[in-house]
């Protein structure tokens, strides 16, 4: 079926099978900041903004994209500069696979006026998993980026 949507402020018009996932479609367009981690909505590595809300693109089907405005980290580089710098400075990156999702969630959290208390930041990261470096440095990086 024919799908029209906006990804990172650019118009896309494409044909897709109804069961194709947004995650695969967006990556096939060369937008590869989103990753497939678990593929079942738990790890947040595929997080995207879908009509202004952060969601998992592995659980979004192609027809749901029709008419939608989608943003990935690639489209928010300026807005996330401070957070990304903070991740680098704090060493909050090991393999980097989950990092895009964490940065996007950190941006989302700060934008919604989230508290910079450590416990609140940990709570806010309930939809993002990291399997190598652990969460301490990620939480520190987010906290410092908010001050």
């Amino acid at each position: 079926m024919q799908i029209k949507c906006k990804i990172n402020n650019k118009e896309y018009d494409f044909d897709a099978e109804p069961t194709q996932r947004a995650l695969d479609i967006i990556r096939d367009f060369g937008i590869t900041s989103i990753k497939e981690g678990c593929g079942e909505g738990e790890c947040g590595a595929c997080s995207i903004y879908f009509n202004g809300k952060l969601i998992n693109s592995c659980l979004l089907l192609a027809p749901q994209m029709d008419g939608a405005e989608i943003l990935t980290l690639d489209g928010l580089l300026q807005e996330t500069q401070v957070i990304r710098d903070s991740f680098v400075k704090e060493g909050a990156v090991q393999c980097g696979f989950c990092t895009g999702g964490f940065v996007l969630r950190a941006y989302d959290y700060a934008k919604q006026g989230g508290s910079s208390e450590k416990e609140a930041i940990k709570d806010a990261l309930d939809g993002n998993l990291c399997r190598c470096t652990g969460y301490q440095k990620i939480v520190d990086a987010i906290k410092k980026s908010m001050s």
Partner: protein
Amino acid sequence: MKYLKPKNIEEAIGFIKEYSEFYLFCGGTDLALKVKNSSIDCVIDISLLSELDFITKTDSMIKIGALSTISTILEDENISKYLPILKSASSEFASHQIRNIATIGGNIANDSPVADMIAPLLVLDASVTLIGFNGERTIALADLFDGFKSLTLENEIIASINISLKEHEYYYRKVGVRAKLNISKLSLAMIKSADGFCLSGASVNPYTMRFSNLEELLNRGKFSNDEILDALSKDISPSGSYRSTKEYRTQVMLNMIKEALRGFKSE
């Protein structure tokens, strides 16, 4: 696969009439993974039915449109003030990314014995308004469930969940192996009001139901530990699964009921 995206309720009802087998689909956080390998070849995506996306409050009632996301419920001031048990359940629901798109109607219609929102709604005595070929009807939420993964819907769409407001105290606790993104081993939702106690919980029956024996016992006012255990054994029939055992679920449910009773103000 046929993927239909009706623009309003009339069109959606038309599609329901036309196709005998279909998935009603909205946020997709459960169904997106299922539709791919399913023999059901038709999806009716109702996400454009914006008339079902609302939360309204009158003097006596809060109505939650079926398309309200869990995030919307979590952030709603009236829910927080008048139905805090729903806020509590929403805050422990999956993760931020899932709450942002998963709907309350979907959580009910998916009809999982572990669904997070059903038990709190049951103890609030919620009703559901359904829309179908023959117009609208409103039934008790409890009457929607009729066995494991078996809804009494008759080619209908859940339009809203309606809750009458009354003074009450509440207890809600969800237990699982982790604090976040947790599929419950079990949960307990409990309300105490002038009408007495209402109890329900997830993951302890083939479908979520009220604990009527316990309610009767607790409303009598005097009860022993053995009587609670006896009533509980009539109200729950937990299975042993990879998520938990029958014994654990029974013991922890008992502990939570006692914890809840200690927390309520005594008359």
